[in-house]
């Protein structure tokens, strides 16, 4: 009722740019759907390179999300709950990858973990490990770019959760670790799930850091976004089909999150 009344009253100077904005955001997606060679869709998807790239993308994005959960949830707890000094500095550092151009992130990872890098040199000498241009590098690049999304999301959930439940748990004999496992974690589970989905979607779409740090080798480091970019140069129809797959995955992600975001008008 009230939404309709407000909608009727939108002033023209706001209405026109808003409508243009919607067109701008929706038109490319429509274009993608219109240009899709629907008849060839089946055979195109069955091409060996497509399945390989999709599998690699899903596996590496899932691994990156898993690493982000293991490291990111405790980090979010430290940011939200501890009385550590310099927390705001820490938070700023953690969110740097959010604003850093991914290519720069890739270069930075290369400088640290590359064969001549600060840590990479040592890994090579001590264990004979080389990270760049491997699937491991893909996972590391994706984690670097995507983990901040999870940390910020979980930290927000922790701040929104009533910390007095943790007080209640303490009066019931639960130390902080037990409280974290049995009270805090279940309370912020929806926030963690949302953060994980967001993180996974970001990892799935990662391009710049991956191509810089991991390269573009079919089967080991060529994820979907890299395959799309490469295909566009030699076979535009293939690029469209691959893009369609990524679009479908993104829409599925959005559906998973709809209660959290779209439900909140």
């Amino acid at each position, binding site marked *: 009722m009230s939404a309709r009344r407000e909608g009727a009253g939108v002033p023209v100077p706001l209405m026109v740019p808003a409508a243009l904005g919607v067109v701008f955001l929706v038109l490319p997606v429509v274009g993608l759907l219109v240009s899709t060679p629907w008849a060839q869709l089946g055979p195109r998807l069955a091409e060996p390179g497509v399945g390989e790239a999709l599998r690699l993308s899903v596996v590496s994005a899932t691994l990156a999300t898993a690493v982000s959960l293991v490291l990111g949830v405790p980090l979010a707890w430290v940011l939200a709950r501890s009385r550590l000094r310099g927390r705001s500095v820490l938070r700023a550092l953690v969110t740097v990858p959010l604003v850093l151009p991914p290519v720069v992130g890739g270069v930075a990872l290369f400088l640290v973990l590359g064969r001549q890098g600060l840590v990479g040199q040592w890994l090579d000498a001590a264990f004979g490990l080389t990270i760049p241009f491997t699937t491991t590098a893909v996972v590391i690049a994706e984690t670097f770019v995507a983990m901040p999304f999870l940390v910020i999301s979980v930290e927000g959930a922790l701040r929104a959760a*009533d910390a*007095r*439940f943790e*007080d*209640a*748990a*303490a*009066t*019931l*004999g*639960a*130390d*902080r670790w*037990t*409280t974290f496992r*049995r*009270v805090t974690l*279940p*309370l912020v*589970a929806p926030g963690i799930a949302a953060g994980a989905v967001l993180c996974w979607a970001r990892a799935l779409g990662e391009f710049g850091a991956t191509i810089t740090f991991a390269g573009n080798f079919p089967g080991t480091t060529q994820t979907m976004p890299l395959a799309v970019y490469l295909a566009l140069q030699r076979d535009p129809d293939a690029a469209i089909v691959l893009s369609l797959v990524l679009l479908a995955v993104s829409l599925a992600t959005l559906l998973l999150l709809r209660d959290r975001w779209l439900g909140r008008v």
Partner: protein
Amino acid sequence: MSLSAQVAVRRGALDLAVDLEVADGEVLAVLGPNGAGKSTLLRVLAGLLPPDGGRVVVDGAEVWDDVAAEVRVPAHARHLGMVFQDHLLFPHLSVTENVAFGLRTRGVRRADARAAAGEWLERVGIAELGDRRPGRLSGGQAQRAALARALVGDPALLLLDEPLSALDARTRLTVRAELRHHLAGYAGSTVLVTHDPVDAMALADRVVVVEDGRVVQAGTPADVSRHPRTDYVARLVGLALLPGTAAGSTVRLDGGGTVAVAEESTGPVFVAVRPESVALWLSRPDGSPRNVWPARLVSATPHGSTVRCELDGEVPVLADVTATAFAELGLAPGAAVWATVKASEVAVYAR
């Protein structure tokens, strides 16, 4: 399982310095206005907030806090139960799991913890709600579950932080009566924090009144309401709370005498009379008030523009009369007076 605490906290505008002694089985009410530091005191006792000074000792020997000796037992290692104003039952656990939580963290096996939880839910009268999530309980049911959760491990100390103030008026009466019953059966020491004098009067053996972080008065509920030391206490706790047995609209007091009330009830009750609703007369008045009692003026204390008169007789109540009226009646301690109260001005609660 006694408690002895000297607590000092300085935090922003709050400067709290309070000493408490609570004996075994005793219920101490800490009464005071919002912002007096009552909840801070309770958080210190629970170990949720480190005090800036003082000691907290349980059982005369077990030191929980000693700032000078740098002793501080963390909250989870203190054997206590706490009930919060808005129950704080864990929303992701069932009622039974909530009540069993404290036993589980202290190493009791799952089946035993659940059995003990079930027993306590039975005692607080919500045995059939064990499988529900707290979100599907009414306020009164949730507060009963919270009490069961606090008491299930038989703690040395029970802390109640405004346990009734989130409840609506009707539920509050029943839960208060039940709480009174459970406190009577509890062997440990209880500290009840409240801003409601009725809770303090009905539940506590002793009352400590805290204003601006300092104890301004301590004593039995009757003592505190009869001899208020500050205007705040006078306004707050002037209520005369008289035990009796109701039959319809008449309550026969345990100390003799009867009180007419407007609301019908039966069984053991408390009758509450506010001092401002009591009028004094030199001779027996003929009028509409159904309560007319002969009494003797014991003492009179001026508070601002009114004088609080303590009356003795079959129905011992307090009366607040204006200073002018007091002077015109020529009242002096020992004077025989008649006190009247309209039946509709008398509150009656189940006890």
